[in-house]
């Protein structure tokens, strides 16, 4: 009976399609490759194709002029401003998130009672959609009844005659604060994972040798965490470089162009001027910048995956 059952099972196995039992990598790589081609490669290639056309917004006629939009990008003052704003935004937000993230992770790196709950609570901001976060901060910044504005009035740091999102510099800071509130927990999570994976022996040895906490942090923790930090910076940096949601919701690139990042500008050209080829060119230009900066970072900081 037993043998009969086994032979039936074997027969079933034999009947499986060949591609499912193949040792060839193609069937296994196909789903992921297909997704990558459809959602990653195709849009980039299509954007590249689109960027080679000059569009007349009045007649909607597109003529093949491969260099038209690219020369326009380098002559467009708003692109140059947007590059500067994007870099400023990325550097400031990244620095704050990194320092805060590491500091909070160090505070939460404990097995004492209640710390597990605290670590879980840290994730909460991450589940809020960025557009909702933007609206939340928009309300809190409101010059007439926003809680943050009123607190700043009370502290004498802001005057009612200059609403936060109406001033060039303050508007950029306003958006960065929303970003920091939402994404610092992401840094905390990565840093915590890194901290908790560190071996205990070097720290015990250092303690026996009389090293202070600060010495242990700078001479052990930071060097051992460097690769984790580099990876976190890379991931968040790329994310920050293509910031769109908060700016669209909170300032719509304003006042003037004070918060206009590259992606926000591409969106404006696309949605307001309907110049799809030029919008694609600005988007591709952003992609090229991200790739260059990310690779430079990987090379300089010797990031290994």
């Amino acid at each position, binding site marked *: 009976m037993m043998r009969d059952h086994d032979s039936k099972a074997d027969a079933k196995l034999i009947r499986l399609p060949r591609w499912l039992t193949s040792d060839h990598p193609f069937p296994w790589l196909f789903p992921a490759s297909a997704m990558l081609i459809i959602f990653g490669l195709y849009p980039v290639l299509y954007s590249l194709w689109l960027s080679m056309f000059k569009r*007349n917004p009045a007649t909607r006629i597109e003529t093949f002029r491969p260099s038209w939009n690219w020369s326009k990008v380098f002559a467009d003052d708003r692109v140059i401003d947007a590059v500067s704003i994007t870099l400023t935004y990325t550097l400031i937000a990244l620095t704050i998130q990194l320092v805060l993230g590491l500091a909070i992770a160090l505070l939460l790196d404990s097995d004492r009672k209640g710390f597990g709950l605290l670590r879980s609570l840290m994730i909460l901001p991450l589940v809020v959609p960025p557009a909702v976060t933007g609206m939340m901060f928009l309300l809190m910044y409101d010059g007439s009844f926003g809680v943050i504005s009123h607190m700043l009035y009370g502290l004498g740091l802001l005057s009612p005659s200059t*609403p936060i999102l109406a001033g060039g510099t303050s508007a950029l800071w306003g958006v960065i604060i929303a970003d920091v509130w939402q994404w610092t927990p992401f840094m905390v999570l990565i840093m915590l994972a890194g901290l908790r994976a560190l071996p205990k022996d070097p720290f015990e040895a250092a303690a026996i040798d009389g090293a202070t906490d600060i010495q242990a942090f700078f001479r052990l923790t930071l060097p051992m965490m460097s690769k984790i930090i580099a990876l976190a910076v890379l991931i968040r940096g790329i994310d920050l470089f293509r910031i769109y949601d908060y700016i669209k919701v909170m300032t*719509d690139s*304003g006042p003037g*162009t004070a918060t206009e990042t590259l992606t926000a500008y591409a969106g404006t050209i696309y949605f307001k001027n309907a110049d799809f080829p030029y919008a694609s060119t600005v988007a591709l230009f952003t992609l090229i910048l991200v790739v260059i900066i990310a690779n430079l970072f990987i090379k300089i900081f010797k990031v290994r995956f």
Partner: protein
Amino acid sequence: MSFKNYDKQNFIIDTANAFTKRKISKRDFLSKMGIAGIGMSAFATGVLGGARPFRGNMAHAAENNTPEDVANFLREAGKPFAGTTIRYTSEATPPTVVLDTLKAEFTELTGINVEIEIVPLEQVLAKATQDVQGQLGTYDIYYLDQAWTSTFSRDTIDPVQYYKDKPDLAMPGFDFDDFSKPLVEGICEYDNKWVGLPFDIPIFTLMYRKDLLEKHGIAVPKTYDDFTAAVQMITAAEKENGIFGTGCQAKSGHYSLECDWTQAVWGHGGSIFGADKKFSGNDAEGVEGLQWYQEMLRNSPPNSVASTWDGQWQMGASGQIALCQSWAEFFPGWNADDSKVKGLWEMAHPLQGPHSLRGRDDVGFGEIPNWGHQGGSSIALSKYSKNVDAAWLFLQWACSKDIMTRCTLAGGFAPMRNSSYTDPRIVERKDRVGGGTTRHLDTVRWTIDNVMASEPDLPIWAGVANNEIPTELGKLVTGQDYNGDAKACMDQIAKLVDAKVEEADLI
């Protein structure tokens, strides 16, 4: 915006005032703000500048007066399309909000379902642009702001022609001649074609707080000079009480700022384009207009530079401003029963400028300089629709005499059809002071018929009016650039706009 949200805003304002006057503790203030923060998504949408203020009363639209022959026509004509779903996307204009509620009546008569997507104006433009670019037919009906009429003219079906071409689908007594002529010309006609049907007419008129003017012995302003003097006097006297002379919709990069600027230029004898089709906002009159606007901003609540029309409406409803030359459709809401300043607002004819108006022969692209800026819109039948006939039935129903009158009754805005002004339901409400009033409609009609101004008609205007002009103006009014120099700002806009016009081969 619902009444519930309006209450929440008042709650927040009252709480903030109580805190600044030290009537409540910081702890109470924060806790009340926390309470108000819950469930405020609708209000947040308003703060985003996406929503046009709707302060109507749906109860006023309840009385269905659809003539029997029209109802029978819809029942018969709709039979082949029963079960079809038609879609259109629109800004939250008062008529759209009302129509969204009344559409069930249409579905009951015809069996045709209607989906209305209500999104902020800039998203309406983005959606329509993508639809026509791909000729997708995702939307059967387009909501078209007057600034976009020329841009989309080739993508719509002329309703007058379609009415003639499809006699079996022609609604009895539809009467195209009943539509206000200036509105047809200003909103939906382009190149001898009706691009759509007139649907909404926000128009600039003067509105003022009679109590504040009486208190300071100020006569109702008739000219820009009178207005400026009154605004400056009230700001000086009432700023300490949180009241400013006027309020603006000067959000950087938003079309609302462009609307304010346009009126300031026309009001000072300037124009957007000259007869040579070159941007003329940087000539002497244009610069004078912008300098006047800068002065108005100095006499406005600081939040003006972060506000669109919704923010400006809130300034009026919360009693923050005394005078305002802006959209007449604010008026019913400012006088609504739950407004903080109910019955205190009055309406007058738009202000007259210090110089004569520029003639239509002296301007380009069909621009009409005048004292009353119109921001009307039309609804149009998409050429790419897969349900053209079903959508056509809906379009006729939505713009029929009874529905348009009921939209006005519920929304409080000006009617598109001349017959609505004499409809007993409208006339009867002229004596009302509070909610549901129609007492402002005579002034609105006079403005439409006599001094209505329209922005230029050129296919790239939607982009220029929503991007280049308000972005550069935003830099000026927020001090990001130009160091307060109106001429420098206008020169830069001239450079950008002329380049766009040239690039589009329009010159």
